[in-house]
Each structure stands twice: as structure tokens, then as C-alpha cells.
């Protein structure tokens, strides 16, 4: 019985069902906090803890999902390609905005995390926290960070962006939809973009493009930076 319920297929099924429930709840509530990843994490985490199932056992099935992380990231090229005309039209603002945003993100994380006295391994895990999860997790693991922390930090960042950024940007007088869109996408990736899409078509398109561009720029900055500094 125990073996049947803890087979790789069982954990695969559990993950997909928990995630599907998260998607359903997200559709119903329309709230960024009801994020399918958070919901599924809580459900699966709860079951693993209650039934004292070690994470290794879960990963016999979960590993199959993990395997598709790389192809999922590569798929990000398709939306950039679809928006290529918009990218060309606003090339300078997108590149400059995503570049400055990425630099500010990395530097401010470095300074604040050290100020708060966080462990070096946690600091490394937080450095790529503004970019989309597939790129951030890959960068964190190449830096020797803890990918679970990176995933959590990226999630908190996305929620913060979706909930607060439209108001904050307005408060500081940034009204242009191009500026708002690029800013939200660069600072809070896909979760923020889901909110930017509600602000307007231009905001959504700009934010969506900024996810990929800021991800690429951050990858290059962190890779080059760590080659020089570490």
C-alpha cells in the first residue's frame, strides 16, 4: 500500500492535481497571492510533512517535472519573437530600462542582504531574485546558491510587484504606459506582468518583453560579474 502510494507516478499525479487546483483557485479569486505554485507547494508540502515522506522519495516523481525546466525556459524565446516588431520599435527604452533595472536589482540586493547580515549562501541565492524563475534558479545554482530560496524570493518579488508597483509608480509620477510596463516586467517578471496586462495592452506587452530581456541581461551581468569577482 505504502509503496503504491509513494511511487513516482503517485507523486507526479499529486503534483499535477495540486497545481491544477491552484490554477482553478487562481482563476476563481483572480488574486496574485492565490498563485498556482504557492497553492501546490502548500498542498504537496503539507502531505509530505504530515505523512513524513522524505523529499528524496518525492523527487523520484518530482524529478520528472524538474527535467522540463530547461525546455520551459527555452520556450520563453517564442513570446519575444512574437513581439519582435514592438521590441524593435521601443528597442532603446526596453534595453536601457532593463539594463539599469537589472544592475540596480543586483546591487541593492547585495548591499541590503549584507546589511541585514544574511549568510553568504543566502545572499548568492537572492542576487537573481528579480528575474523569471527559470533563469533565476539556473543562475542561483551556477553561483552555488540555494535554489529553493531563490524560487521563494522570486515568488515574493512577483507578488510585491503585482500588488504594489502600479500604485507606487503612479505615486512617483510615472504615467507613461511604456515606462510602467517595462518597469513592472523588469522588477517583478511574469507575476507582475499578469497585473500589467490588466492596466492596458501596451503595459502588458512591454512588461512581457521586459521579462525575457531583463532575464538575459541579468544572466550576462551575473555570469560576467562572477567570473571577474569570484
Amino acid at each position, binding site marked *: 500500500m505504502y509503496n503504491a502510494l509513494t511511487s513516482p507516478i503517485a507523486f507526479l499525479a499529486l503534483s499535477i492535481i*495540486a*497545481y491544477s487546483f491552484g490554477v482553478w483557485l487562481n482563476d476563481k479569486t483572480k488574486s496574485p497571492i492565490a498563485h498556482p*505554485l504557492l497553492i501546490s507547494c502548500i498542498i*504537496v*508540502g503539507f502531505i509530505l510533512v504530515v505523512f513524513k515522506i522524505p523529499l528524496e522519495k518525492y523527487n523520484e516523481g*518530482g524529478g520528472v517535472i*524538474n527535467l*522540463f*525546466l530547461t*525546455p*520551459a*525556459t*527555452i*520556450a520563453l*524565446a*517564442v513570446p*519575444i*519573437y512574437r513581439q*519582435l516588431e514592438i521590441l524593435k520599435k521601443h528597442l532603446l*527604452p*526596453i534595453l536601457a*530600462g532593463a539594463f539599469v533595472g537589472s544592475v*540596480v*536589482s543586483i546591487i*541593492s*540586493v547585495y548591499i541590503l*542582504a549584507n546589511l*541585514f547580515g*544574511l*549568510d553568504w549562501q543566502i545572499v548568492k541565492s*537572492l542576487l537573481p*531574485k*528579480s528575474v523569471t*524563475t*527559470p533563469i533565476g*534558479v*539556473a*543562475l542561483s545554482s*551556477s553561483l552555488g546558491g*540555494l*535554489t*529553493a530560496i531563490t*524560487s521563494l524570493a522570486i515568488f515574493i518579488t512577483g507578488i*510585491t510587484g503585482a500588488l*504594489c508597483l502600479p500604485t*507606487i*509608480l503612479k505615486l*512617483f509620477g*510615472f504615467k*507613461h504606459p*511604456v*515606462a510602467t510596463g*517595462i*518597469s*513592472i516586467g*523588469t*522588477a*517583478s517578471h511574469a507575476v507582475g506582468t499578469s497585473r500589467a496586462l490588466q492596466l492596458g495592452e501596451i503595459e502588458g506587452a512591454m512588461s512581457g518583453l521586459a521579462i*525575457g530581456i531583463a532575464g538575459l541581461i541579468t544572466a*550576462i551581468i551575473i555570469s560576467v560579474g562572477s567570473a571577474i569577482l569570484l
Partner: protein
Amino acid sequence: MNYLRELGVILAICVIGEVISVLIGGALPANVLGMILLLALLATRLIKARQVEHAADFFLKNMAIFFLPVSLGILDIYAQIKSQFIAIIAVCVITTFLTALATAATVHYILILQSKRKDKNKNV
């Protein structure tokens, strides 16, 4: 459309990304290299969008589930990071604001510069 063939194309690009990543000493992660490669192949029309987009859309639409195993890793390290949890949240929230404002300000001034240059061209 054939999902399996599209998946095959994307997986082949993954492998090429891995190979390039190893060749350049791991300077960039394989998935980022694969993404650049696919974008280049699409832009040069060596691969047509319809040859990969259905499989790609499947990944994009369900992107978050692929992070479930990674995120559950928190169960194993929670005891280790418990004391630093609040600080981690604070860092994430504050830096998100700083990043967004710096980005918005940059785009804002570039748009002003661009519209000024356009006005100048009109006057000449």
C-alpha cells in the same frame, strides 16, 4: 501540428545549449543559451514559429509547475534559514521597489530625450 515533433525540436535545442554552456566553461546557463539560440533561429526563419509554438505554449502556459520540485526544497532547508526569513522577505520587497523606480525613471528620461530629438528633426 505535431506536439511530439515540436518537443523534439525544443529538446534538441536544449542539448545544443548544454553543449555550448560546457564549451564556454559554464559562463552562461544552458537554458539561457538555448533561449537565445531559439530566438536567433526564429528571427532568421531557420525555424518557423509554427514548428515549435504549440509545445512552447504548453510550457509557457504551465510554466509554474516546473518549479514545484525546486520550491519544495524549502522543506529541507527551512530549519537552516528560519532565523533569516523576515530579513529575506524585507530584502525582496525593498529591492523590488528600488528596481522598478530605477527602471521607470530610465525609460521616462529616454522617452523624453527621444521625443525632443523628434521635435528637433521636425523643426529642421
